C-alpha cells in the first residue's frame, strides 16, 4: 500500500461550527423576509418554511451529522424547495416582474433555503461556510428591503434604518471567528506537538480588518451604482420610452374596411404571416369581406357601418360532417373569418366568439380577437355545393348587385353588350350552340367577359388612375391594372349583362409548408362573386394568372419559414402545458426524477449484488483420495461453525480465527493488503463454536498442501495424511 503524506489529505472530518454571530445574522435576514412577506401578503403560507429554516440553522450548531461533500442531497433539497414554491409564481400580467412582491419573496426564500443547505454540508477543509452564508444572508436581506411601486413596506420598512446596521454589525463580528481559509491544517503529529488549533491573534485581527474593508468597499460600490440610477430615474424612463417609440411599429395586416381603388396595391408585399391552415384542400380563394355598392372609386358598405350581431355556433353549422381544416390566425387586426365560398360549416376554436352581418353577403367576424385564435373550416365533398356563406339572394340584394352606379361611363355598358354579342356570334360561327340548361347562359357570359379581359388587359402593380371614374378609365383607356381593377371591372361588366355580382376581398392561399398552408399579408386579393340562377353563388376571378399572389412575389426566405415553424412548435408546447396546473407539473417533474434515480439505484444495486456471487470451491484434484480428504475437512470446519469461505485458503482462515501458527514458516499476509473474506471471523465470534484442535488442523493442512501441490503424488504420505485427518475428526466426534 502506498503511504500518502497525511499533510496533504483533507483535515479531520470533525463537524465545523458556524460562528454564532453569523447564525444570528442569517436568522435576522430570515426575520426581515418574514416581515416583508407579512406586509405584502405574498404567499403567507410560506412563512412556516422560514421557521423550519431557522430551526434547521440553529440545529446545525448542535447536530453532528453533515451531508457528504459530493452527495446529491443538496440538489434534491434545492429542487424540492423550488418546486414547492413554483406554484406560487405569479402569472405574467404585464407588471414589471422584478418588483412584484411575490417574486421577490420567492427569491428571498431561495437564498434562505440555500443558506440552510450550506450550513448542513460537510466542510472537508475544516472551514465554516463563511463567505457563502454572508452572501446568501445579504441577498435575503436585500430581497426583504426591495421597494417597488406595489410593495407595502410594513414594519421592516419602517425600521430598516435601524435593522440594517445591526445586520452589518453581526456580519463584522463574525469575521473574527472565521479563521484563515487558505492554510491547511497541520499534520496530526505536528499539531499534537505544537498544539496549533487557531491562528495567532495578530493575524486574525488583520484578516478581520481586511474583510471589513472589503465589506465597506462593496457597500460603497453598491451605493455608488444605485444612487445615480435613483437620482435620474425619471430621465432614464423617459429615454427608454423614446427608444421604444422610435422603434418601427409592427406592420398592420388585415383587410381594408372600405377598399378604395388606388394606384398601388399592397405596395410593400409584406410577408407577415397572417394565417396557417392545417390540412386544407379547398379553393385558394378565401373570402373575407363583401361589398356590393360602388361609389366614387370606393366599394361600400364600409365595415364600420355594418351592424354585426353575435351568432351562435349552431348558426355556422359547426357540427357538419366533412374534412376539417384548422385555421390559426396570428394577426389580431384581422377579425374577419376567411373561408372559401363553398365552406360547409365553421367551428370557432375555444374562447372565440363570432358575430355575423348580413349587409352585403354573409360575413362572419370574430368578436374578441386575441391572436392567435383558431377556427375550423368544414368542407363537405363535392365542389359546387353551396355552403353556409351562400345564402339565396334576396330581391333587395339582387337589385343592389345588378345596380350600375351613375359614375360608370355608359360606354362600359356598351362594351359589355358588345362582348356578349361577339361571343354569341363566334359561337354561332363555330357551330356551337349555347345550351339552355340551367346556368349555361350566365356561365357563357362569364366566360366571354373573362376571355375578353384576359386578352385585352395585363397585370401591373402600378396603374394610372386617370381622370374621372377609375373603372371606366381602366376599361376604356388603360390596359394595365392590379387585381382590384380586374375585380371591379368584372363586377360592372357582369352586372351590365344581368348577372348579379359583388366585389369580394380576401386572401389567396397558395403557399404550402408540409401539410399546412401559409397565408401572408401580401397574398391579399380581390375578386368577384356572381349569382348564377340554378347554381348559386360562384367565385369569379378575372385577374390574369401572372397577377395572382402566387406569381407576384419571390418565395419566402427559408429562415423566415424556419422561425415561423419554431414559433409554432413553441406555441404548441405552451398550449399543451397550459392544460396542467403548476402543481401537476411540479409533481410530474418530481415523479420523473424519483423514477430515474430510483431505477438507477436499483440497477446499480442489482449489478453490485450480482457481482458478489463467489464461484464455488475448486476441488478438482488428481486423485480421489485428496478430494475426499478436502471435502471431509471442509465439512469438519463447517460442522464446528467455522466454515471456510471459498475465497480463502485454510491456513489463512485458521490464522484469522486468532490462533497463532508456529513455527512461522509461512510469512503473514503483508499488512495493508486487507484480505477480508465475507465471513471472516475474529476470536470474539468464535466463542460460540466448539473449539477445534487448531494445531492438529494446521498440521493436517500442511501435510495436505504438500500432497496436493507437489509435482509427484506420494501415495504413502497420502495414507499418513488420511490417518491424521481421521484422528482429527474422530477426536471431535467424541
Amino acid at each position, binding site marked *: 500500500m502506498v503511504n500518502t503524506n497525511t499533510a496533504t489529505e483533507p483535515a479531520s472530518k470533525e463537524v465545523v461550527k458556524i460562528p454564532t454571530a453569523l447564525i444570528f445574522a442569517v436568522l435576522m435576514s430570515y426575520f426581515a423576509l418574514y416581515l416583508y412577506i407579512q406586509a405584502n401578503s405574498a404567499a403567507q403560507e410560506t412563512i412556516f418554511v422560514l421557521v423550519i429554516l431557522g430551526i434547521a440553522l440553529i440545529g446545525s450548531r448542535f447536530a453532528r451529522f453533515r451531508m457528504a461533500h459530493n452527495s446529491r442531497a443538496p440538489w434534491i433539497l434545492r429542487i424540492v424547495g423550488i418546486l414547492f414554491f413554483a406554484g406560487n409564481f405569479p402569472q405574467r400580467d404585464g407588471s414589471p416582474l422584478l418588483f412584484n412582491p411575490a417574486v421577490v419573496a420567492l427569491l428571498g426564500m431561495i437564498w434562505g433555503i440555500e443558506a440552510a443547505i450550506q450550513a448542513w454540508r460537510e466542510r472537508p477543509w475544516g472551514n465554516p461556510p463563511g463567505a457563502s452564508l454572508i452572501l446568501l444572508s445579504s441577498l435575503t436581506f436585500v430581497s426583504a428591503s426591495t421597494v417597488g411601486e406595489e410593495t407595502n413596506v410594513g414594519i421592516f420598512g419602517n425600521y430598516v434604518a435601524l435593522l440594517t446596521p445591526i445586520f452589518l454589525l453581526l456580519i463584522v463580528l463574525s469575521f473574527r471567528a472565521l479563521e484563515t481559509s487558505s492554510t491547511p491544517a497541520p499534520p496530526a503529529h505536528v499539531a499534537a506537538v505544537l498544539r496549533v488549533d487557531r491562528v495567532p491573534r495578530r493575524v486574525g485581527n488583520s484578516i478581520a480588518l481586511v474583510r471589513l474593508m472589503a465589506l465597506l468597499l462593496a457597500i460603497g460600490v453598491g451605493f455608488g451604482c444605485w444612487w445615480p440610477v435613483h437620482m435620474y430615474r425619471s430621465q432614464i424612463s423617459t429615454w427608454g420610452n423614446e427608444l421604444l417609440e422610435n422603434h418601427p411599429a409592427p406592420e398592420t395586416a388585415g383587410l381594408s374596411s372600405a377598399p378604395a381603388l388606388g394606384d398601388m396595391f399592397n405596395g410593400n408585399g409584406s410577408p407577415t404571416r397572417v394565417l396557417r391552415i392545417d390540412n386544407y384542400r379547398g379553393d385558394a380563394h378565401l373570402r373575407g369581406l363583401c361589398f356590393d355598392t360602388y361609389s366614387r372609386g370606393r366599394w361600400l358598405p364600409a365595415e364600420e357601418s355594418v351592424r354585426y350581431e353575435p351568432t351562435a355556433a349552431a348558426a355556422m353549422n359547426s357540427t357538419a360532417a366533412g374534412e376539417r381544416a384548422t385555421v390559426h390566425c396570428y394577426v389580431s387586426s384581422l377579425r374577419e373569418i376567411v373561408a372559401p365560398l363553398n365552406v360547409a360549416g365553421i367551428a370557432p376554436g375555444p374562447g372565440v366568439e363570432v358575430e355575423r352581418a348580413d349587409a352585403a353577403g354573409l360575413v362572419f367576424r370574430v368578436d374578441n380577437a386575441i391572436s392567435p385564435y383558431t377556427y375550423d373550416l368544414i368542407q363537405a365533398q363535392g365542389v359546387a355545393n353551396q355552403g353556409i356563406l351562400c345564402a339565396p339572394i334576396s330581391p333587395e340584394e339582387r337589385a343592389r348587385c345588378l345596380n350600375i352606379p351613375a359614375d360608370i361611363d355608359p360606354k362600359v355598358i356598351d362594351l359589355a353588350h358588345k362582348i356578349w354579342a361577339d361571343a354569341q356570334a363566334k359561337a354561332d360561327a363555330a357551330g356551337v350552340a349555347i345550351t339552355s340548361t340551367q346556368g349555361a347562359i350566365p356561365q357563357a357570359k362569364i366566360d366571354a367577359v373573362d376571355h375578353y379581359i384576359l386578352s385585352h388587359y395585363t397585370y401591373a402593380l402600378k396603374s394610372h388612375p386617370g381622370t374621372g371614374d377609375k373603372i371606366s378609365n381602366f376599361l376604356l383607356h388603360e390596359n394595365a391594372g392590379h387585381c382590384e381593377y380586374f375585380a371591379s371591372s368584372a363586377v360592372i361588366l357582369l352586372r351590365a349583362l344581368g348577372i348579379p355580382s359583388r366585389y369580394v376581398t380576401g386572401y389567396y392561399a397558395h403557399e404550402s409548408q408540409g401539410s399546412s398552408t401559409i397565408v401572408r399579408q401580401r397574398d391579399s386579393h380581390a375578386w368577384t362573386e356572381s349569382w348564377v340562377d340554378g347554381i348559386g353563388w360562384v367565385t369569379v376571378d378575372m385577374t390574369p394568372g401572372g397577377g395572382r399572389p402566387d406569381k407576384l412575389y419571390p418565395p419566402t426566405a427559408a429562415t423566415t419559414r424556419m422561425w415561423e415553424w419554431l414559433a409554432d412548435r413553441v406555441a404548441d408546447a405552451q398550449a399543451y402545458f397550459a392544460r396542467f396546473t403548476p402543481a401537476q407539473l411540479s409533481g410530474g417533474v418530481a415523479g420523473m426524477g424519483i423514477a430515474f434515480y430510483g431505477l438507477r439505484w436499483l440497477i446499480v444495486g442489482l449489478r453490485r449484488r450480482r457481482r458478489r456471487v463467489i464461484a464455488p470451491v475448486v*476441488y*478438482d484434484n488428481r486423485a480421489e483420495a485428496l478430494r475426499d480428504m478436502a471435502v471431509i475437512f471442509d465439512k469438519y470446519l463447517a460442522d464446528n461453525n467455522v466454515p471456510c469461505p471459498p475465497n480463502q485458503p485454510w*491456513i489463512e482462515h485458521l490464522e484469522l480465527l486468532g490462533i497463532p501458527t508456529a513455527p512461522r514458516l509461512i*510469512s503473514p499476509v*503483508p499488512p495493508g493488503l*486487507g484480505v477480508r473474506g465475507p465471513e471472516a471471523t475474529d476470536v470474539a465470534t468464535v466463542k460460540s463454536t466448539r473449539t477445534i484442535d487448531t494445531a492438529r488442523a494446521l498440521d493436517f493442512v500442511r501435510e495436505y498442501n504438500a500432497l496436493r501441490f*507437489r*509435482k509427484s503424488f506420494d501415495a504413502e504420505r497420502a495414507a499418513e495424511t488420511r490417518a491424521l485427518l481421521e484422528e482429527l475428526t474422530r477426536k471431535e466426534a467424541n
Partner: protein
Amino acid sequence: MKIETETGKTMLTHEQFAATAGRVERNLATVIRGKPASIRLVLISLLAGGHTLLEDVPGTGKTTLAKSLAKSINGIFRRIQFTPDLLPADITGSSFYRPQDGTFEFREGPVFTNILLADEINRTSPRTQSALLEVMSENQITIEGRRRNLPQPFFVVATQNPTEFHGTYPLPEAQLDRFAIRVTLGYPDLDDEMDILVTHNDGEPIDSLEAVVTCEDILDMQALVKTITVDRAVAQYILKLVEFTRADTRLRLGISPRGSLALYRTAQARAAIEGRDFVLPEDIRALAGPVLAHRIMLDTKAKYGGVQNDQIIDEALNQVAVPR
C-alpha cells in the same frame, strides 16, 4: 553442498536456498530496520528475475536498501539521479572520439552494473525513461550495431515520490507493467527510528556491511526458482484473478500476460524463500497486491469516484475461489 543434476550442472537444494535467502534478509535488516516485509518483497523480485519500483517519500531508505543489497551480494552498485535534462546516452553510454587514434571508444554508461538505483524515474523525459525500460526488459544493449551484454544478475530499483506531481512525467501504466513488484517502505516505527538514531551515532551501519552471498549464488538461486512446482490449479487461480481484472468494468486496462507471468515467477520465488518446492495459493494471495496493483488502470469515473487500485485487487481476491 550442491547436487549434481542430469545435465551436470550443480543445483542448490531448497534448504540451502532458504538458508541463503535468510542470510541476505538478516543482513539487510541490520541496515533497514523494522521492514521485514518490504525487504522480503525486494528479495523476491530479485530472485524472480524482475525489477522493483519503490514508491516512497524521500528519506525512508531507498538508496540505502539498494546499496546494502549490492554490498550483500558483492555486486556493483550504480545510481542514476534522473533529471529532466538527462539523455538516453547518459544511461546506456556512448562513444567518444579519440583524436590521437582516430577511433571511437565506447564508454559504458551507469547501466552496466548489478544493482542499479534509478532515482526519481518520473522526473525525466519519456525518451530517457523508455531507454532505461528497454534495457530492463532485454538485458542487453545494442549501441551502434554492437550488442553488449549487461552483467548478470541485473536488477533495477526505480523510485518515485507518490505525492509530488509538479514537473514530473509520470510513468504510464504500460511501462509500469515492466516492474515486477511495487514496494513501499514508509516511515519506520518510533522504536525502530530510535534504533536508527542510536546505530547511526557510531557511524553508518552500511559501511560495516559484509557480503554474504556471491553473484553466482544469486544466479543459481534464480535458476532454482524457475524449477519450483506450480500446480495447474494454482496457475488457474492466477489466471482467474487476472480474468477478473480484465472483465471489471471499472478498469480501462486489466492485467496483461506480463503481469500474470510476473505473479507466477514471484510466487515461485516466495515459495523457494520459505523452503518449499511447490507454490501454494497463499503465495499468490500474499503477492497479488504488490505485483498486480500498479498494473491496472482505473476508468475515469472510478478514479474520481474514490476507487483505489488495491481495492480492486482485494475484491478479486475476495471473489475468486481458491483451489483446495
